[in-house]
């Protein structure tokens, strides 16, 4: 098991529950938490309500807010790691350097920073948003002041009184910009595309509520269910549009107009594509922060970085002391993909360079036996909690394990024809959604416009599809001299 975020921890818990105890959880960093360990920027919080964005098997009655802040989510994952006996399996500071599928012995041969390993099954809990992405402009290295990515926030840099360039207007930037604005002398925001920002209906969850959740767990699961179904209903705004989408746009416009009086700034912040095409952002503080006199919004992409300044698309030079990159991630371009070599002697990254990132049921890839990718291609969501998707995928992995046992087999590999059929249908479904039709360029789609990240429909459909192991899509093998019989 590689990576100890929600996916890794959840998988180990479920494996143990099934009596599989020979599990190692490899973590390159020095603690668990994944995304919720790496992203420590000020204001970092989840934009899905915490009662939904948590494990179904580990409800937490003590969430302090509707939308929990990063430290609380990280603490939750630490707690689950202890309470469910994951800790003994955890090997921190252990980076998976390479993995090669041995097609004779039917196992993965791994090299880690702390020595070699063999694994019958390899599960990636790396997700797709791992490696920070930087803009492809000249001079980034030449900048003389502090510069860092929001996912690698440098807390040693005191922004008080500094001139700060914020590059990017994605989900992270919207959260940290209002915090930066309070401290900095000046903030220059470089906006390539204006995001749609709707109000975040956050609030503190009262002690009384928490006590009630603790005493009556059924109430909490009801709350979770309520959030879940509301969000599934909301999905229709993305997939069908209509009145629901119009209402969302209206809400976002009101949010903008209520906070920004200056018509020029208002125009600059008004998106030119349909709401939902890029991730819909939640904030009550973003627009008010932008209205402050110490914030300048530059509506062009960054063209160049110089030792003491950032040059915008119109050639205007902005002198700054610090650069913060809120430029997102190298989506699905995960280090692991470059390090795993499959049956056909090429890496997962090379495989995906041919086809675009693709998997069967977001989990298995032809040519890569006994490899499971949690939060693999087309499992991300624009409308709900990926923890739900992770748990559905974990169930699928468990079913696959059971099938191996049942057939007395050692290896399973998805058939290419089955994987292709799955993806053709998936892409057909995505074609009519706002993600593909909304007239924007988002990280959801690759350079060819293929949407390789999002699940196109309801999450319960994904759960239904992954509840059962679809053996028809697979080839099962047992190697010479390693056969076990049923």
């Amino acid at each position, binding site marked *: 098991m590689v990576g100890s975020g929600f996916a890794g921890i959840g998988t180990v818990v479920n494996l143990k529950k099934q009596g599989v105890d020979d599990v190692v959880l490899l973590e390159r960093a020095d603690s668990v938490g994944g995304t919720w360990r790496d992203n420590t920027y000020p204001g970092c919080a989840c934009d899905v309500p915490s009662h939904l964005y948590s494990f179904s098997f580990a409800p937490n009655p003590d969430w302090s807010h509707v939308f929990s802040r990063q430290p609380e989510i990280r603490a939750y994952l630490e707690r689950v790691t202890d309470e469910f006996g994951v800790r003994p399996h955890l090997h921190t500071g252990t980076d998976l350097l390479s993995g090669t599928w041995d*097609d004779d012995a039917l196992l993965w041969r791994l090299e880690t920073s702390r020595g070699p390993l063999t694994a019958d099954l390899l599960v990636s809990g790396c997700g797709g948003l791992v490696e920070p992405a930087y803009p492809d402009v000249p001079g980034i290295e030449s900048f003389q002041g502090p510069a860092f990515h929001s996912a690698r926030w440098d807390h040693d840099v005191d922004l008080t009184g500094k001139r700060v360039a914020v590059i990017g207007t994605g989900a992270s930037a919207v959260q940290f910009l209002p915090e930066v604005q309070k401290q900095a002398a000046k903030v220059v925001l470089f906006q390539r595309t204006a995001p749609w920002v709707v109000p975040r209906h956050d609030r503190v969850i009262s002690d009384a509520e928490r006590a009630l959740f603790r005493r009556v767990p059924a109430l909490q699961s009801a709350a979770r269910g309520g959030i879940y179904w509301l969000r599934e209903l909301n999905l229709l705004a993305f997939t069908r549009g209509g009145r629901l989408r119009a209402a969302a746009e209206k809400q976002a416009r009101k949010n903008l107009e209520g906070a920004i009086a200056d018509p020029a700034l208002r125009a600059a912040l008004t998106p030119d594509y349909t709401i939902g095409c890029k991730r819909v952002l939640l904030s009550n503080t973003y627009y008010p922060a932008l209205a402050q006199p110490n914030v300048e919004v530059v509506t062009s992409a960054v063209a160049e970085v110089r030792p003491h300044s950032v040059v915008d698309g119109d050639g205007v030079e902005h002198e700054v002391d610090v650069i913060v990159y809120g430029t997102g991630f190298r989506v699905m371009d995960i280090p692991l993909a470059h390090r795993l070599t499959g049956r056909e002697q090429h890496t997962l990254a090379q495989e995906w360079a041919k086809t675009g990132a693709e998997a069967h049921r977001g989990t298995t890839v032809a040519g890569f036996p006994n490899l499971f990718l949690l939060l693999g291609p087309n499992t991300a969501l624009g409308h709900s909690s990926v923890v739900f998707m992770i748990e559905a995928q974990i169930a699928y992995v468990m079913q696959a394990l059971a*099938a191996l046992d049942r*057939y*007395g*087999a050692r290896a399973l590999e998805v*058939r*290419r*024809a*089955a994987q*292709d*059929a799955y993806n*053709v*249908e998936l892409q*057909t479904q995505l074609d009519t959604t706002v993600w593909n039709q909304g007239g924007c360029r988002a990280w959801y789609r690759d350079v060819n416009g293929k949407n390789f990240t999002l699940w196109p429909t309801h999450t319960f459909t994904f759960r239904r599809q992954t509840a059962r192991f679809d*053996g*028809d899509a*697979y*080839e*099962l*093998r*047992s*190697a*010479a*001299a390693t*056969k076990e*019989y*049923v």
Partner: protein
Amino acid sequence: MNPRQMNKLAALAATAAGAAGVVVARRRAGARGVDHRRPVQGSPLTGRPRTVETEDGLALSVVEHGAQDSATATVVLAHGYVQSSALWAGQVRDLIDARPDLRVVAYDHRGHGRSPRTPRDRATISQLGRDLARVIEAVAPTGPVILVGHSMGGMTIMALAEEHPGLVGERVAAVAFVGTSSGGLAEVTYGLPAPVAALMRRALPRLNARNVKAELAGRARHVGALDARMIFPRGADRELVATALEVHRACSAETVAAFLDTFRGHDRVHALQALSHVQTLVVVGDKDALCPVAHSHAIAAALPASELVIYPGVGHMVHLERREEVSRRLVGLVDRALARELAA
């Protein structure tokens, strides 16, 4: 065989090999109109037809593909009961595409395909084993041989191993058993409730006798849904079913009747001993109603160095339903076996 059937067979002979490939390649409109088939690469199949004489003087129809005299190895494909070499078309193409250095030979058992009819007393698996020995001697007098047998073709290889352990020991580098059995066929229930299966088993000889009589009178044997149910799972690709049934239809009622008895006596687990030194591959669909998956487990158990491959949801015609995958496994087997030959 009546003239009409002869014509039909001739037509099939000309087109079936190609047709099977084309059918597999053809775009399939699934339930949701999804096309998941990849076009087949390469030129249409053109083989070099020849005959091989059996010990009792029958001229078996044999087609060689791929490399000729310079072949690094010869792959011989043996088909199943009531089928013909035409149903190996996909594998023939895939094998020579993957390894143009191979000679790939598909032949028709006596009574099947384009081979002549057999006297009833020679319609046995042992006889098929001796026929196979003749084929090997004729098409591959030298060089390593890889044997691939589906269903009755697999049993034929076991019979060869039983009666010609010397030939197997000297010449055979690898064997693939596809949807076959080493014995216990009398207990198979075809996926039906046991009493129904027993009833069917009792009725079959009489049904066959009636079909033979009808055939003599010039009426064709009925092949339909029941036959399809026996060899394909529900929901199988319709065009594959049609292709297989077309070949079934071309098989005479006489052959169907003649070979029926030989399966009961097939018990050749011990014969697998002669194969313990070669690379072996066992392939099966878990919905195989005629040679159930347990039979493949038994073969694999008797061959400790074998690779067992199971395709969930697939029936008896596993090499058709999982053409791409089975071919890849066969190529892998050939690669492994020849690498070992080279090392030795």
